[in-house]
């Protein structure tokens, strides 16, 4: 499957500070626990010196047989035409392992703007937030409900209200995000903007 068209648009947006507000989309279900960042983007594809172009190797070794782009693995969700959308839904402990931010870049470059799981690994969660990919933490029960939906179901992730809704059943759940990070995502700020604004405090701290 070709990368979704949205990918390029997203990369441009992040350059000019991406904002997140309400995401309404179908979703791709990856019903697997402990998906590590080596699966999301294998180490041999980390040789870039820019943030672009990692989407084509997203889940490379699960997506293709024998590392051959001409042989998509039909059992893998990204290759199943019935699934589509800007939301990836995965089992608990998503993004564990290596700190490679390339995992978040690959997910964004492929066209996902949110990842839903019952549990994210720490470093991945920060990397996602720093790239305006919204990690949405739901209860295990709600996650199972999402996995039980049919392939054309849609989700609505409402960042201002901090809710995620299965549109067909109208079942909804609140999700947690720090008010600082929420503010950043809604306005397209990043941590460097904030840290630079308190540089005097940092210099004073160094002298103390």
């Amino acid at each position, binding site marked *: 499957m070709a990368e979704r068209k949205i990918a390029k648009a997203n990369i441009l947006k992040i350059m000019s500070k991406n904002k997140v507000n309400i995401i309404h989309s179908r979703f791709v279900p990856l019903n697997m626990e402990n998906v590590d960042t080596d699966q999301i983007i294998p180490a041999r594809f980390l040789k870039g*010196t820019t943030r672009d172009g990692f989407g084509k190797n997203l889940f490379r070794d699960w997506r293709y047989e024998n590392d051959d782009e001409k042989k998509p693995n039909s059992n893998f969700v990204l290759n199943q035409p019935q699934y589509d959308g800007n939301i990836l839904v995965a089992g608990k*402990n998503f993004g564990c392992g290596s700190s490679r931010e390339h995992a978040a870049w690959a997910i964004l470059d492929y066209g996902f703007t949110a990842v839903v799981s019952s549990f994210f690994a720490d470093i991945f969660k920060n990397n996602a937030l720093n790239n305006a990919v919204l990690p949405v933490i739901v209860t295990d029960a709600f996650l199972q409900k999402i996995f039980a939906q049919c392939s054309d179901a849609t989700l609505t992730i409402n960042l201002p209200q901090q809710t995620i809704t299965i549109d067909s059943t109208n079942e909804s759940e609140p999700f947690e995000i720090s008010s600082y990070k929420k503010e950043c995502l809604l306005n397209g700020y990043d941590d460097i903007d904030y840290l630079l604004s308190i540089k005097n405090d940092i210099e004073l701290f*160094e002298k103390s």
Partner: protein
Amino acid sequence: MVQTLFDKIWNKHVVKTIEDGPSVLYIDKHLIHEVTSPQAFAGIEKRGLKIFRPKQIVATADHNVPTINQHLPIKEDLGRIQVETLIKNCAENVIELYGLGHPYQGIVHVIGPELGITQPGMTIVCGDSHTSTHGAFGAIAFGIGTSEVEMVFATQCLLQTKPKQMRINVNGALKNGVLSKDIVLYILSKITASGATGFAVEYAGSTIRNLSMEARMTVCNMSIEMGARCGLIAPDETTFQYVKGKIFAPKEEAWITALSDWKKLYSDEDAKFDEEINIDTADITPMITYGTNPGMGLGINESIPSEKSLAEQEKPAFLKALNYMGLNEGDTVLGQKIDYVFIGSCTNSRIEDLRLVANFVKGKQKAAEVEVWIVPGSKQVEQQAIAEGIDKIFEAAGFQLRQPGCSACLGMNEDKIPAGKYCISTSNRNFEGRQGAGARTLLASPLTAAAAAITGVVTDIRELV
């Protein structure tokens, strides 16, 4: 106020705290390497900023470098460009670089401690998840993403939410043939690969106290495999003796001042932890993993669990793992034929690891069909091994002593395990494809790996020592 070791270091480094948000944490040392830094340098340039505190940064080339013929240009184009980009970025920004050919070059988590850059009480970050290694010195050390590397470049600070705290107490004497790697693989097998997510983990207890610094680093190194933000151990005489005299360790007056500060770094007697786990070493045997995350480990004589014993949502990953590994539920891994042995990585590539292996293999020969790669963690480890004649022992055993780097731990360079082959590895991750597409990794201690090198199959080291 009663404080944990973590609290004491954290509180000393908080510049300010945002209301209902993260804290601004000051970073003492920033270690960088070729793979996760180029985009951060580019980001700084794009924003028109300068590196705020270049003297607090140390760089090395490790992830991508070849482990043979390091004096020749890197053959593979993209890897070479990354290493060259690091050289250029460090030169332009006046950052100390221990690149290929430098006597201090090596795996970033091996050189920090051995050069005395890593010291108790510090905050240390690196764009690499195994930065948790440095916590063995009583430091808050954790891996970060490239955007965060850029933040530290720009301001020497990070926005961090204070993690919860866990203490893992390990008590008792280690049985014969059991190493610190077995301790941490055992903990992982009990609490799983997500068991410490969101926690800073302090390791304590008599067993930890009796470990060498190298062995403590192995334990802290794999904290990230439990999902922990960091792992740390209170510094003590063992720590001070290790740091003393190291190239960048404080000297004379500065040493005396530092030492008196470091001696205050421990969890107060009544300090409260959000979670506490007790481990008795009587339960720990040599360990081996059977699956595709480091929590999927067994005592060397134990059997792989059955699908029936698992919760419903755990089954897909479990079955996928066994299929990938070519192993069956209910089997033992003992006796599994091995194709490759990799002794190296930031987990187990220090001089103590190489000495242990050399001591065991002296006078023995590797199994004919097994390929054995010993990859020292640094130039200093390599030179020390040569000075002690360890290289000769390996040569006589048919082991290849290669040059320093991350090597087959993550297979970014040419050191890849072929698809379908079994590798017993002293590294930290057995993820699918970690050591090469289709490679099957069994994580173990250096002694268990060495035993397999000699017999050609997964072996209980206790039968050979």
